[in-house]
């Protein structure tokens, strides 16, 4: 039995683990993918004290830090969470773990387009990680679906390899950070197609065509070799729902200033919550605050028992 189980090993979860270990509470982190979305961050250049570091390196350092303080890790996906009396039980594939308090830090998962052909051509032209896959598209034609900052960054990186890059965005104007938007506009290889959705992807063995909902240069069939999906992220909240944790309309976990949810003993931190900023530093801060809440809850629980 642990005092605290943290679900999620991204920035929020790891930071919570570091703080809880320093409060001397027996802590377990269960994580499907240590590092979370930061693993795909090519460079993090706004982590105070560090001018530039890869997202993965930053996460590795945090994990080592947590492990060094005695935090235990289980690298598995959580299947089910339940609360009986005052005890939480977390089930992974084959095992279960129990704790007095819980911090939910599952973060976000990539939004898929959910269009015909997407799943079939995943890894065969459809990609969800431009930093991983850009180099496979030398002298090819690629599309980027989305209009946020990562879509702009994807297009900029891809333009170093591909012969032509199209950003395909459903709204009228891309909303990347000004510095990245400017880089997109000034890049001869990149063209932005606005007000347009990809409704299907087709191909033979590999992806060859995206079907658009509006004709581009007279045709809804758009020839390309790669399609990078950068259409934002959605929270991973199945576990929260199993516990009866309240979510807002966007399915983000509702928390108070102390990162407490509506369920006693359940705290939440980072991107999975209804926060206003989704950055490494805010996730780390959330994790620290959630750890304090969990610590106080566990301490009180122990006093009540004896």
């Amino acid at each position, binding site marked *: 039995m642990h005092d605290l189980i943290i679900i999620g090993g991204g920035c929020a979860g790891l930071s919570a683990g570091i703080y809880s270990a320093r409060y001397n509470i027996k802590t377990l982190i269960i994580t499907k993918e240590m590092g979370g979305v930061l*693993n*795909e961050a090519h460079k993090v250049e706004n982590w105070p004290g560090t001018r530039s570091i890869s997202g993965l390196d930053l996460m590795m350092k945090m994990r080592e830090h947590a492990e060094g303080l005695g935090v235990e890790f289980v690298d598995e*996906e959580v299947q089910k969470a339940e609360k009986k009396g005052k005890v939480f039980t977390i089930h992974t*594939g084959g095992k279960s773990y129990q704790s007095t308090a819980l911090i939910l830090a599952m973060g976000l998962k990539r939004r898929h387009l959910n269009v015909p052909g997407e799943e079939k051509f995943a*890894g065969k032209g459809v990609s969800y990680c431009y930093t*991983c896959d850009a*180099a496979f598209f030398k002298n090819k034609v690629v599309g980027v679906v989305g209009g946020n900052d990562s879509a702009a960054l994807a297009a900029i990186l891809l333009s170093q390899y591909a012969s032509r890059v199209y950003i395909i965005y459903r709204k009228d104007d891309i909303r990347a950070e000004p510095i990245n938007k400017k880089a997109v506009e000034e890049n001869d290889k990149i063209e932005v197609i606005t007000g347009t959705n990809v409704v299907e992807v087709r191909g033979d063995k590999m992806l060859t065509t995206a079907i658009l909902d509006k004709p581009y240069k007279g045709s809804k069939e758009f020839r390309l070799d790669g399609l990078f999906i950068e259409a934002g992220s959605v929270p991973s909240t199945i576990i929260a729902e199993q516990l009866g944790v309240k979510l807002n309309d966007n399915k983000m976990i509702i928390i108070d200033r102390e990162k407490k949810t509506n369920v006693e003993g359940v705290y939440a931190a980072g991107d999975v919550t209804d926060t206003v900023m989704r950055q490494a530093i805010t996730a780390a801060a959330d994790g620290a605050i959630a750890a304090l809440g969990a610590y106080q809850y566990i301490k009180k629980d122990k006093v009540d028992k004896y």
Partner: protein
Amino acid sequence: MESLNSENFDDRTKGMCIVDFWAEWCGPCKMLGPVFEQLSKDYKGKLNFFKVNTEEASDIAERFSVMSIPCLIVMKDGQEMGRVVGYMPKDSLKRKIDGIVK
């Protein structure tokens, strides 16, 4: 673990093997590395484990139409039997590999 290139690839992939296609700049590949290493012990005697750096051996990546990494390809005598794309934790990966091998 042994890294393959176009000179030794055909020779080394005789029989049953699994090849990890990866690159230095790929975060999820680096996550998968230690998991792949652990699995190589579990499958000792059943499957040979190799790595291919897609930057250094881009011709092999091209031959197998690798467009997304990390990508694990299970092969029998150099012929693809199935592949797993993307990072996943050890037990989930094991279930996928077992599904391809049997």
